[in-house]
């Protein structure tokens, strides 16, 4: 008797699971969005949730328990201009560039010194450009490397998958490129003598010249610009709102103030 009952229970459980499965296919994505602010479909109501790969000074880093830096300051202004709180999440660069953090609705926007490229545009929506990036070569002060032409045959550290790595591959084809996950390892590598030079974004390299052991051998102009990234689909209104704020910040002079506080020489 008891065993019959348990068999029936099991059968009912199976049917319930089946029914659940059937009902689930009707569900889908329409219950995903929660917050609505001025027609924006935000991850969390009342907040602009920003994903960034921290630290990457001077664009994003932690100071006194708070995230700060050029990107973060701009995001603060943009969020407050939209009447939203700013919520920052520290994520890996992989998740950002693949668009996965945006697709998974972990955040609304990515602010992480992301260079605008055609390949990335295929899978991500970009804001208007907010920063013109220069590449640069960092070498030990006593190095005989003076320009990009001297990199032939040298070990050159680049950050994995960045435009700096692409630039180095195209413009210093004779150099032996060594890829590192982030600036932290690159800086350790040049200190350890594992590489002869670093090729990456200028502001980051400038940060390494402060104690006098390293110097910028050459600044390399590129036509690269940074943009904030958003989901490829369904973010048209957010992109428009962010661009509107960026324009307002440039018009009011706030952009220049923030820019000078990080990059003025």
């Amino acid at each position, binding site marked *: 008797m008891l065993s019959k009952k348990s068999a029936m229970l099991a059968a009912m459980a199976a049917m319930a699971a089946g029914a659940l499965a059937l009902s689930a296919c009707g569900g889908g994505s329409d219950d995903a969005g929660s917050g609505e602010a001025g027609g924006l479909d935000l991850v969390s109501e009342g907040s602009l949730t920003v994903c960034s790969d921290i630290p990457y000074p001077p664009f994003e880093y932690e100071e006194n328990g708070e995230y700060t830096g050029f990107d973060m300051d701009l995001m603060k202004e943009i969020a407050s201009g939209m009447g939203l709180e700013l919520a920052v999440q520290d994520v890996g660069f992989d998740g950002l560039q693949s668009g996965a953090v945006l697709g998974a609705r972990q955040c609304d926007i990515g602010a992480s010194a992301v260079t605008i490229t055609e390949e990335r545009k295929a899978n991500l929506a970009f804001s208007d450009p907010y920063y013109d990036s220069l590449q640069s070569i960092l070498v030990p002060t006593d190095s005989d490397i003076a320009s990009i032409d001297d990199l032939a045959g040298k070990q050159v550290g680049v950050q994995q998958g960045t435009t700096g790595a692409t630039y180095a591959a195209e413009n210093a084809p004779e150099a032996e490129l*060594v890829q590192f996950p982030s600036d932290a390892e690159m800086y350790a590598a040049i200190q350890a003598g*594992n590489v002869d030079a670093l090729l990456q974004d200028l502001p980051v390299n400038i940060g390494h010249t402060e104690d006098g052991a390293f110097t910028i051998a050459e600044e390399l102009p590129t036509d690269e610009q940074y943009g904030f990234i958003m989901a*490829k689909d369904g973010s048209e209104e957010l992109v428009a709102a962010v661009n509107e704020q960026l324009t307002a910040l440039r018009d009011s002079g706030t952009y220049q103030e923030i820019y000078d506080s990080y990059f003025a020489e």
Partner: protein
Amino acid sequence: MKRSTRRRLIQGVLYAVFAAVVLFIILSADWATIQPYFFNVDIAADVFPEILTIAAKNTVIYTAIAFVGGLLLGLLLALMKLSPVLPYRWLATGYIELFRGLPALLVIFGFAYAIPIAFQWRPPGGNAGAGLIALIIVSAAYIAETIRAGIEAVPKGQVEAARSLGMNSAWTMLTVVLPQAFRIITPPLTNELVILIKDTSLLFIAGMAIGDRELTTFARDALTNQANATPLVVAALLYLVITLPLTQLVAKLERHNKRGR
């Protein structure tokens, strides 16, 4: 109800529950959203030849080097730990406790950066070489304990029999004890090998030249270039392509050994 009927009924229900759960997971996933981020066929085709000829190849080579190195060093450590000479035992115990207790990532970082700074000496093979030395050192700590357990599991009578035949202790260890010990520890050694295959993915922290990239580094690189996570999925499949036949092979070997015993 007959007992056999009831058993068949219960089995049928269990199958139905299993099928329903699988169906539920498949149907409830948001395939339309996940597809462009993780399962982009064009991007998979784009990375495929290189990820196989460069990255998967390097992963296999790195694993082989780390495993053979770890096995030799591990054997030495195991014998030291069983040695009657106390300082050897202390040394082996200290080594094992240290490197079993540290994350492999930190040991790799130490060998790639701290050691060159401290001793003005760079390990052979560049950054990949430094990372591999670290992997050998870490895996040896685990393998040593496995081998020691294997040696201790060989019945004492085997040693006594060999010694009474006039063999010296080294020859006994080499020809009688160790072959049996390795037969006993085949499953945990396979485990260690599979863990090593995955641990090669930590080498990225040391910095990688273009041709040296293993599966994970290669896939992350492709991810950034393509702005898509599909290369990670391709790498995941390739890890399985490497590990699954390997574990099958070892299982076969194990069955063969059992029959031979």
